[in-house]
């Protein structure tokens, strides 16, 4: 698959530093699972952490800490088994959707639009959801309450930034407004991380607010 829309480099730097909020990390990791070029970029960015560690100031370790380490060593080796490609979902998403994309229980949220809740980050600051837009239908024009990451899992949509197809990611700040229209032929299914620091009554309302301007 050829990826045309990549995350903002600042987003990838936060991913490499490990400081992105949980659900954003999940969306970026899912995108990277689909993008070899993206994984290469992150590998390069990781070297910034490596260089900073190499020149970090030194704090004296407790006496005996090396002995403690050496005596804790055992024969345990962690074997990481290469990922065996199966199913229709990238690995970082599989635990969220054990029954795959076709087993999702959708909630109708507007004409041609359905969503499914995949949970909140532990910080409570953001939420992960699936969004399904019927082929040829449009999502009402909306702004964002904060950073919004949208990864295309199936189908495609088009907005003023271009056509977004499977593997592409839209990385929008809060000041971006757009009106995506699903391309004809197939429903468009996206994985979305949205900021939820908005003061609305229910959590669902809060999450839908940035999408539908409720």
């Amino acid at each position, binding site marked *: 698959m050829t990826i045309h829309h990549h995350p903002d480099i*600042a987003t990838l730097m936060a991913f490499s530093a490990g400081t992105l909020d949980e659900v954003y990390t999940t969306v970026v990791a899912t995108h990277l699972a689909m993008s*070899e070029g993206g994984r290469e970029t992150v*590998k390069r*960015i*990781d070297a910034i952490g490596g260089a900073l560690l190499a020149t970090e100031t030194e704090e004296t*370790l407790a006496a005996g800490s090396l002995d403690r380490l050496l005596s804790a*060593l055992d024969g345990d080796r962690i074997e990481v088994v290469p990922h065996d490609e199966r199913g229709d979902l990238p*690995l970082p998403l599989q*635990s969220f959707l054990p029954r795959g994309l076709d087993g999702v229980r959708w909630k109708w949220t507007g004409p041609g639009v359905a969503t499914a809740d995949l949970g909140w980050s532990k910080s409570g600051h953001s939420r992960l959801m699936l969004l399904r837009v019927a082929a040829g239908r449009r999502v009402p024009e909306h702004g964002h309450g904060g950073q919004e990451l949208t990864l295309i899992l199936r189908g495609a949509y088009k907005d003023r930034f271009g056509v977004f197809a499977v593997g592409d990611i839209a990385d929008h700040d809060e000041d971006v407004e757009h009106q995506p229209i699903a391309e004809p032929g197939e429903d468009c299914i996206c994985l979305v991380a949205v900021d939820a620091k908005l003061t609305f009554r229910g959590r669902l309302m809060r999450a839908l607010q940035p999408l539908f301007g409720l």
Partner: protein
Amino acid sequence: MYAVLMSDPESGQPRGIDIMDEPNDLLMRVAHSQDKFALAALFNLYGPRIKSMMLKLGASDALAEDLVQETFLTVWRKAALFSSQRGAASTWIFTIARNLRIDQLRRQSNKPYEDLSKIELASDAPTGSFLAEQHQVIDRVTIALGALSVEQQEVVRLSFIHDLPHAEIATRIGIPLGTVKSRLRLAYERLRPMLEDLQ
């Protein structure tokens, strides 16, 4: 620095440590021959720096010590994976410490970074190339980091070492979030030629 190690009766490894050894060579020796001398040398080199990183999270001294121990136990157990990946030893050790930091703060309920390692192992991207040169790349990145503007260095360090999300960096320095991001983008552009040598 290594005198104690050399006399360590426990290790039983015939080979001592030359202080000129490159970190990557040391890590390869841990990977291929379970060389405890090499692990100890890496511990002496990076342990105090990882402790410094962990203290900057606000960890207590005891917790920072524990996280250093955990980091090097993981280095020991996963060393075989290092040889199958490209990159420098310090980069690999940084990512291990980062993952422990994320676990410690219970910031993530799934394991996205591990998932990506598995995918990387399964991909047929070229592996193990130019490992010996990786440390020189790190030296060049270090020099380039030093040549960034003070403002750029500050946001890079607050992100990677102090573990602050961009929004918190903005609050701490008193600049808009968009400025934090643009400084990071500019820093990346400046570092890019050195980082691309990693290929």
